[in-house]
């Protein structure tokens, strides 16, 4: 482990001192010099150096050193000035893990004008919020967010860092992992601490056919992206206290190499997100015609649920792409999932098999969806679904 500086290659361009967040690089004649006591090996200088004159060797962490890494961190993603649901789920889970370890929960909040969100994270159970607030973080960009994460992680040495497995979480986490030479487990559905205080990360593979338990024995922090909706957030407790630490992260404009020209929202007015809804009513090719989609919509409205679709009906344009469930669409795990006229192809199931309760209605008794259903009805959706709607209405009026 260490910093490698090739003085021969260095042209003295002085880009690296500008990007060092730790004041570890100084001009030294027509070259630079490094203060290794200040350097945390975050890699910003390596990244910016046009001459490849700086290298960082990072690898495994010595057994004795592993104990230096403490606390469970959560990257708390925001969108349009709000925290994403998965941030609350992960803070709750982090609390549980941290309690087992006797360590703290640290929520990382990066964005622009997001300070007011910090208290929600404390009420959710975080001991501390690390707040990085600057205009440059207004849009999510891989480069700016990676620099911020690495700048926070490198000197503070957390033992665990969790990210929601959203599109941004799965963009950011591998970038941080590669910069710091860390293991990373994707899209986990289970997290626990074992007898040796290691993070046990459970995830589905092969389209949900098999589960794997993954460890990172020699690297710290241990990092994972975690599927939204799998862990339920606890109730927020406004009597919880914690502190907010503001951290400044220096980022040069030319370090952010992608520019967001436009955000396009495809969320249709009034259409709930399948990822965030607690109940999802999903239709497949069995629905036959787009005009029939009023039927699942009626069921969804009754249950305050989102409507989704299998790939063929999204490809046909009957529902927007945001509503597609499965491998090339969204991966979801609501507490209740209805599959209406869906055969249960593996590419579909991999996107919903971690749902808590699965209901399947299909004409074909051999349809594979029945293999993973908790409650299956062999029948015609156009007869069964209206009957279900009737029954639910009855139940709701009785209450």
């Amino acid at each position, binding site marked *: 482990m260490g910093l490698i500086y090739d003085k021969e290659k260095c042209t003295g361009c002085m880009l690296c001192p500008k990007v060092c967040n730790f004041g570890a690089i100084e001009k030294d004649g027509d070259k630079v010099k490094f203060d290794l006591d200040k350097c945390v090996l975050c890699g910003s200088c390596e990244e910016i150096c046009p001459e490849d004159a700086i290298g960082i060797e990072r690898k495994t962490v010595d057994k004795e050193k592993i104990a230096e890494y403490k606390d469970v961190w959560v990257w708390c993603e925001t969108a349009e000035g709000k925290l994403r649901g998965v941030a609350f789920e992960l803070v709750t889970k982090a609390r549980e893990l941290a309690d087992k370890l006797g360590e703290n929960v640290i929520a990382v909040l990066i964005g622009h004008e997001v300070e007011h969100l910090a208290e929600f994270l404390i009420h959710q159970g975080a001991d501390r919020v690390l707040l990085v607030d600057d205009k440059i973080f207004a849009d999510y960009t891989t480069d700016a967010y990676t620099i911020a994460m690495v700048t926070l992680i490198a000197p503070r040495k957390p033992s665990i860092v969790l990210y929601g497995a959203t599109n941004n979480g799965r963009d950011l986490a591998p970038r941080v992992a590669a910069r710091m030479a860390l293991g990373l487990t994707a899209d986990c559905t289970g997290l626990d601490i074992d007898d040796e205080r290691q993070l046990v990360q459970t995830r589905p593979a092969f389209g949900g056919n098999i589960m794997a338990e993954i460890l990172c024995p020699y690297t710290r922090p241990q990092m994972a992206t975690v599927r939204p909706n799998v862990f339920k957030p606890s109730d927020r407790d406004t009597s919880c206290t914690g502190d907010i630490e503001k951290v400044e992260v220096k980022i040069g404009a030319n370090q952010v190499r992608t520019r*967001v020209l436009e955000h396009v929202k*495809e969320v249709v007015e009034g259409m709930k997100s399948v990822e965030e809804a607690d109940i999802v009513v999903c239709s497949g090719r069995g629905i036959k015609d787009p005009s029939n989609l009023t039927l699942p919509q009626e069921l969804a409205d009754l249950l305050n649920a989102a409507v989704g679709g299998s790939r063929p009906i999204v490809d046909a344009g009957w529902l927007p792409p945001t509503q597609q469930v499965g491998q090339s669409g969204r991966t979801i795990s609501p507490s209740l999932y209805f599959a209406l006229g869906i055969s249960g192809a593996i590419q579909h199931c991999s996107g919903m098999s971690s749902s808590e309760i699965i209901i399947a209605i299909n004409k074909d008794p051999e349809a594979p969806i029945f293999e993973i259903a908790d409650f299956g009805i062999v029948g015609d959706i156009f007869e069964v679904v209206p009957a279900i709607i009737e029954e639910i209405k009855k139940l709701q009026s009785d209450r």
Partner: protein
Amino acid sequence: MKIIVPVKQVPEVAEVKVNEETGTLIRDGVPSILNPFDEYAVEEAIKLRDHYGGEVVVMTMGPPQAKEALWKALAMGGDRAIHLTDRIFAGADTWATAYTLARQIKKMEYDLVICGKQAIDGDTAQVGPEIAELLGIPQICYVRHLEIDEDGKHVIAHRETDDGYDVIKAKMPVLLTATKGLNEPRLPNIMGIMKAKKKPLEEIDAATLGVPEDDLGLKGSPTTVRKVFPPERKSGGIKLQDVDAKEAARQLVEFLAKKGAI
């Protein structure tokens, strides 16, 4: 335009079965295919080359039979292939895979690296961003529409987000990961298939790559799989057959109410 497309051979997951007794995957007799998301990447690379000139290099890290995935990509229209193959590479996790691929890519010239969004066996979507970081270039993940700016130096990409998409501009070289919607991958025709095996295919082992063994394969992987097991089978899922719709609906709603699900 010089484009590198890392591709992976994967088992046709729809055909993978689990041995109920041992809880392991039965892979024997399961056909191998070119990862479907990589087809989008290959297709886009070919289209760009046909328009702007240049070269499409497809590369994989994998066992000898992974060549078939390269042949498929060459049959679609790739110009040449690189096969990183050595027993030392075996057992690599995403970091070690990305590291190995990046070490090779660093020796090459490129404007674009296009990966698939994810490989359908592991579904991690990590190798692309990890390669980008190791190359020190920007990344745009989950691209479903791509344009090259008039100046010929920038890409403008539609990147899928949780709520829609972002339009993102970046200067080349840049790494993209391709997802559904980017294009309609072509099926290789007979001519393409015949030509494929005559196209240059270079095999590279660990020694040629010049990377110490400790950084490769299982040894170079920070993650370890402690165990694999079948997903919890829903114990005694209910299945109603030949039950009248009204009665079935009544039982279902009763079931849901009891579970507190509605």
